[in-house]
């Protein structure tokens, strides 16, 4: 019997993994095990075969290569043009520190015994043993900050929710992952769903919640399916400790990733942002104390509990502790998921690890942190990847997405797109965001057309100041980041 591992991650499926799995399943003596993705996305579809010496990988397996690669793999990991060798020896994986993604791509995501054999379940067991207060103390000691974008300390959020009074409390997992250039939440849900469930169970125990929701965007049908199945297994095994978890699916709205809009959406309403205070921790879902955390924040809780907050906090730089699952995307030779301690420079990530552009042309601009993140020129490549270092350069790391553009990019068009996107996705509640984004787009159109360029650039800068100061949430409030950084670092693209 030969065991073949073929990812069922969306990124692998999108480039042909299903055809390989179907062909492999017809081979005699072969067991196909569907896994998540290792995160070496330029090598997808990447398949692995179990040999006495460990797993051997091949990729990217194109439609024309399937037969020959399967032959080589089944022959005990024999040579082939696409043979990569042991995946864990690949430099892209070797340089990583995988804590949140330790199992992703290795295990069968829906096998509870695989999960446990690879360290799953220990965090919740320990949380049960030490109790709620000590659990929160571990999270606080780890220095874990919210991975959804705002970087708020998770321990403080949990403590606030624990201390809040309420007849019931909720854990809400934000799996709306709308930022362009990001896919780590999706990969984790597709590749290691029990980690998220365990993390939610730990959070529920810590704050005294009786119900959890996972709000997944509708663009992720596979993640929804895997999470549903995993929850069914968890429920059947009584792993949820009296805190049932329900999956809710979004309906194509970016702003619903903002935590208060998400709560409105969960209540069945328009996804409109709420004014704060009250904080969700005090009055969140249906007015009850609620923890809203990103997928990665919650899925990191188990490893923190298992190994201790201090062990997690040993990694990282300055006030950014632990590791960040960084997502390398866009025009890059080596796109994929790279989990590493905070502190690598942007240049290391783009050039050394990402391998430069896929097109082979020079890198011109890098957008970090999604559609509301700043564009960085190569001149700022020495910026270390951590929350404060990016803020000091008028940028943000957000959910950890890095999107690379080559020198064919037109930065005035990118600035225009940022405004257009904000106009499309604005929830409409506040004027600076709703009207400002439309005016911003129109004004940039005039700049592109060469009308009163200097005066119109000044107008856009003014408008950005208003949006930054006056918007209710970070949609309107942060769209100045991509716009102003484009003007500041790439002014030549705005001038006739």
């Amino acid at each position, binding site marked *: 019997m030969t065991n073949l591992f073929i990812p069922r991650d969306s*990124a692998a499926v*999108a480039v042909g993994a299903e055809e390989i799995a179907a062909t492999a399943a017809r081979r005699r003596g072969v067991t196909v095990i569907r896994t998540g993705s290792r995160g070496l996305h330029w090598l997808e579809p990447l398949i692995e075969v179990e040999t006495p010496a460990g797993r051997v990988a091949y990729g990217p397996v194109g439609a024309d290569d399937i037969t020959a690669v399967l032959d080589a793999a089944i022959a005990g990991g024999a040579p082939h043009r696409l043979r990569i060798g042991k995946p864990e020896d690949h430099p892209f994986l070797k340089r990583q520190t995988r804590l949140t993604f330790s199992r992703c791509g290795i295990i069968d995501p829906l096998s509870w015994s695989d999960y446990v054999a690879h360290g799953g379940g220990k965090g919740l067991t320990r949380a049960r043993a030490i109790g709620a207060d000590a659990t929160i103390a571990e999270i606080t000691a780890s220095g874990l900050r919210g991975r959804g974008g705002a970087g708020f300390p998770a321990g403080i959020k949990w403590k606030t929710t624990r201390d809040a009074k309420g007849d019931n409390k909720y854990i809400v997992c934000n799996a709306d992952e709308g930022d362009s250039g990001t896919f780590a939440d999706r990969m984790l849900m597709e590749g290691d769903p029990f980690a998220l469930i365990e993390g939610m169970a730990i959070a529920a125990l810590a704050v005294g919640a009786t119900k959890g929701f996972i709000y997944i965007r509708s663009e992720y049908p596979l993640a929804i399916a895997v999470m549903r199945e995993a929850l069914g297994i968890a429920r059947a095994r009584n792993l949820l400790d009296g805190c049932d978890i329900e999956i809710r699916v979004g309906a194509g709205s970016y702003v619903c990733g903002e935590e208060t809009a998400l709560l409105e959406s969960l209540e069945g309403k328009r996804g409109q942002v709420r004014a704060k205070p009250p904080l969700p921790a005090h009055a969140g879902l249906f007015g009850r104390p609620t923890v809203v955390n990103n997928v990665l924040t919650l899925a990191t809780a188990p490893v923190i509990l298992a190994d201790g907050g201090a062990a997690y906090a040993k990694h990282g730089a300055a006030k950014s502790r632990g590791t960040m699952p960084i997502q390398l995307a866009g*025009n890059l030779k080596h796109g994929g998921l790279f989990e590493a301690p905070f502190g690598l420079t942007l240049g290391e990530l783009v050039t050394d690890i990402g391998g430069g552009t896929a097109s082979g042309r020079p890198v011109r601009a890098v957008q970090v942190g999604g559609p509301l993140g700043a564009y960085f020129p190569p001149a700022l490549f020495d910026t270390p990847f951590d929350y404060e270092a990016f803020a000091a350069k008028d940028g943000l790391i957000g959910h950890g997405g890095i999107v690379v*553009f080559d020198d064919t990019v037109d930065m005035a068009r990118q600035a225009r797109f940022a405004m257009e996107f904000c106009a499309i996705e604005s929830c409409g509640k506040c004027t600076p965001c709703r009207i400002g984004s439309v005016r911003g787009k129109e004004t940039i159109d005039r700049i592109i057309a060469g009308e009163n360029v200097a005066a119109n650039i000044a107008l856009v800068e003014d408008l950005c100041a208003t949006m930054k100061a006056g918007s209710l949430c970070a949609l309107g409030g942060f769209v100045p980041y991509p716009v102003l950084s484009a003007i500041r670092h790439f002014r030549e693209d705005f001038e006739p």
Partner: protein
Amino acid sequence: MSAPIAWTPARAAEIILSLKHLDGACLPILRAIQAEFGHVPPEAVAMVADALNLSRAEVHGTFSFYHDLRAEPAGRTVVKLCRAEACQAMGGDALAERAMRKIGVDWHGTTADGRVTLEPAFCLGLCSTAPAAMVGERVVGRLDETTLGRLLDAAP
């Protein structure tokens, strides 16, 4: 995803009944109705309002907020092409323009023969295998003009 079935109030009532116990049931019900019938007709909005003791304006407010929900049926295959930054960096804009020219529709448009509706998506989480699209519920990455053209031609 199976093909939508023709609208019947009786089937809609069954869907509403099966989900109305949920907390914040309005959006899950609207989604389920759209999944079944391919759209949410005004009659459905009224039925949901009655069942949940909400005003029609409230349910319509929810309905009209979300990009996914539509009042009219779409073409037989909905193609969502990613318009967001990582796909732009890999030539997504030019690809979208060629696709639109090929099938003769703009964003949100449906081909004259009712085969394809073209919708923009803002990131599909396939940013490392860009440009990306969803054809029905099938995800596709590393698109170029040839592969996208083939997918559009193959749509039933």
